[in-house]
């Protein structure tokens, strides 16, 4: 077995462990007889043990891939996002030992699972480093930034639990709407995974000639049925779907189609879930969330930002600027990824100020934490895949 295949298997084992651990955490939460689930129980202990086994396996994937590739496995979208998912689990384990809350695991692990699943939809082959990435700063900047972001992600998890517990889901309100919207977004990501996997299994391919935004002719291959066609497209593969509409040259119809398919699969999935459980997903999760101590969730959310913010600053801004100066001759170029990292930083600075000086605790703080996570994900997904740039390594 090659090192690469061992690496892949270890990742798969980690993935499965996280799934199983989620079930055990669920059991821990359900079985607690007291009104607030603050104590560690048998279920919880098993859950965290399995999580740690999964995490070790995940680290194993990381190390073996590093050895196989000759460089830190954080050089493309798949590698980075997987590392990010892994660190979220790591951050959770750290917080678990500080606060002993299985409920956190029940929410954190599925998010990590979704992220790793999402990552696996992108090219997973090991690629050699291009000149710009040949620097030890690759390890330092990217890994520290991922670590910082994963700690900040924990604040969003705590915030989500807080909101699920405390928002009145029986009445129509803006909060109820937006909370369910967050749940829907998670399902849509599952939709992306489902649609990409389905068409990959079918080995779907459709090629086109088209005219790009500079007026030059080019060719493109879709891996999903082409709902939208590129500018002045000309089909090359017979027997495939005819696009329903043509897009102007600045819109990448292939990406638009992928997103549309994800939406379709996701919405169908969401619809099915709603049909089966007959209530909003948040309402399904609320009884579990009710076992949380709101004050504790609030404190965890706040501490996660406190711990994560300096790490994020160091990794995503300071190390990034030092490396940019060495590689690109300017430490800051206002390219989209840099700008969105700055936006993330400013946002969390505002979070801390609002909390410390304006007393924004409890629900307000929880919403801010969730929004912060959305900004981080926007930088990871939208900026990398849609807003192209010098910095995009997808």
């Amino acid at each position, binding site marked *: 077995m090659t090192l690469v295949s061992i690496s892949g298997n270890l990742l798969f084992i980690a993935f499965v462990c996280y799934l199983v651990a989620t079930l055990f955490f669920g059991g821990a939460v359900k079985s607690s007889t007291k009104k607030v689930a603050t104590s560690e129980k048998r279920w919880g202990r098993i859950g965290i043990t399995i999580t740690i086994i999964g995490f070790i396996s995940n680290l194993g994937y990381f190390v073996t891939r590093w050895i196989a590739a000759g460089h830190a496995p954080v050089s493309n979208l798949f590698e980075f996002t997987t590392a990010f998912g892994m660190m979220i689990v790591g951050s959770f384990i750290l917080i678990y030992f500080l606060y002993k809350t299985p409920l956190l695991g029940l929410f954190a692990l599925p998010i990590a699972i979704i992220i790793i699943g999402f990552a696996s939809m992108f090219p997973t082959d090991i690629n050699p480093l291009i000149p710009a990435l040949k620097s030890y700063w690759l390890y330092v900047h990217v890994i520290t930034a991922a670590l910082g972001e994963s700690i900040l992600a924990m604040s969003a998890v705590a915030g989500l639990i807080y909101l699920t517990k405390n928002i009145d889901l029986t009445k129509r309100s803006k909060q109820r709407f937006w909370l369910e919207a967050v749940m829907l977004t998670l399902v849509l990501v599952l939709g992306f995974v489902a649609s990409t996997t389905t068409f990959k299994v079918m080995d779907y391919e459709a090629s086109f000639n088209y005219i790009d935004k500079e007026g030059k002719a080019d060719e493109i291959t879709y891996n999903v049925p082409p709902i939208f066609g590129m500018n002045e497209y000309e089909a090359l593969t017979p027997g495939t779907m005819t696009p329903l509409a043509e897009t102007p040259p600045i819109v990448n119809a292939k990406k638009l189609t992928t997103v549309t398919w994800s939406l379709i699969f996701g919405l169908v999935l969401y619809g099915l879930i709603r049909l089966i459980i007959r209530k909003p997903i948040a309402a399904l999760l609320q009884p579990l969330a009710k076992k949380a101590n709101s004050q504790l969730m609030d404190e965890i959310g706040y501490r996660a930002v406190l711990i994560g913010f300096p790490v994020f600053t160091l990794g995503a801004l300071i190390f990034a600027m030092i490396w940019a100066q060495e590689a690109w*001759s300017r430490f800051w170029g206002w390219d989209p990824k840099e700008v969105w990292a700055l936006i993330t930083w400013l946002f969390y600075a505002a979070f801390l100020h609002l909390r410390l000086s304006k007393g924004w605790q409890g629900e307000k703080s929880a919403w801010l934490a969730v929004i912060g996570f959305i900004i981080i994900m926007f930088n990871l997904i939208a900026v990398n895949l849609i807003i192209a740039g010098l910095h995009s390594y997808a």
Partner: protein
Amino acid sequence: MNKIMCACGHENPEGTVLCGSCGRPLTEEAENQKLVDMRYEGSARRSQTFNKSIVDKVWNFFSSVKVGVSLIVIILVAAAIGTILPQVFYVPATGETEIAAYYERVYGTFGKLYYQLGLSDLYGSWWFQTLIGMLGISLIVASLDRVIPLYKSLKKQRTRRHESFMKRQRVFGIGENTLGEETFAKSEEQLKGLGYNVKHEDGAVLGEKARFSRWGPYINHLGLIIFLFGVMLRALPGFYVDETMWIREGETRAIPETPGYYLKSNEFILETYDKEQADEVFNDAIERVGTIASNYQTDVVLYKKPEDALPGQTDKLEEVKKDSIQVNEPLKFEGFAVYQMDFRLDELRSMQFNLSNKATGESLGDLSVDLVEPEMSYDLGNGNKVELLGYYPDFTGFENGEPQTQSPIPNNPAFLVKMTTPETPKGETSFVAIKQTVEPFGDNKYKLEFQNVETRDVSGLTIRKDKTLWILALGGLIFMIGVAQGSYWNHRRIWIHETKDGQIAVAAHTNKNWLSVKKDLDQVTLVANLPPYIDQHDLEALEEKKDGEKSS
């Protein structure tokens, strides 16, 4: 300013909420509050005490955290808008008209609007820079306004606080003194064991830990201020150089804006990952993507002209060093750095021709024309000669019969030649371009037949000098220290005192991480038999306790 006299005898400045010495609430609002706001120890924020002139009003505006947060949010949103479409820096067009046309052509009406509103050069715009400037002012003013009173407060705080202060702390307990004299001694010992600085006076004990963490936010603000200051310095001449230069293999060029430095490019190297040679592990990726560059570098020699030499004198250049400029490995000298940024492959360097008889195809000799330094004439021997009448490196066409060239770069070389042979002693004129031969004076017997080209690569280098870098680095370092100081430590205080009627009152405060200070207090409580405390903030725990008490 009016001073407020506290019952304990301490004189407080106007606007103080809690007495700086004993902690008694001084305002009606504070008295009515169940829990007191400990953010600035109840000290008067200087701006609040003084609000008369316009200067004061401006000062107070910038001192407000609400204003600061609003500025952060506005900057955040503005920055996001700048990412909707690429900024001018990343657009492949130069000159105002070309850029405007590009936005309209590629992004349509939205692009046109984006450009016209100035959003395409957002981060360099005066209003964005003004916002950053305002944030800088806010940082300075807000920090000064708070740190000075806070420092004075914490320095002057008394060990024994007034009961009304204790009662209004989040963690508070009051009860019987079971150990009598021992209570204080044991508490002191335990607190010291936990790393607290302990003061025991006036029948009260104050345990304090990590006061330095309170300065964290102000230190990190200082770091940001220094950073912004460094950015500002770039406006001053001499602090910042940003130039580009293109240099061909074999060329020697002056490095722009450097005092007397020249660069000679020996070679430009582009390496790609070869499927055969690269690690097997990379095969899938290489197959999928095609060519993946592994390295670009320019091998150069750095020269410096001698002290007394003038620009233009290039014969006495002294070699300084040889280097290979790669991405991530700039060439550094005297505060300058030269970066490998771009390249163009295969620019024409020389062209080889054959002088041949059109009818028989017989070759009378060949010549190689160096496109950078062509010669006046080429003697092929045996009375055969080719004279170069005109050379047009970037041929665009004829105008009034005259060949035109649009630049000195050999992108499309063309030649006007006169060929002389023993057979044609008067010489025949021909115009030779790529894939085009024009014979202006009628049919010739001979022609120049194109044989071969030699090419060379061109490197695009960026020259950078940035004297502000160390200031920015210093600002960043101070920021990190401040943010670590404020985030990773917390300021904890535990007060224990004996009330007038012999009870023990206990209170604790921390600026963050209540769980830990409560744990500390638990330990002291255990050892010194202190009365149990309640967390007046955690209503759920209170409720649970009540339920517990009910059922038990």
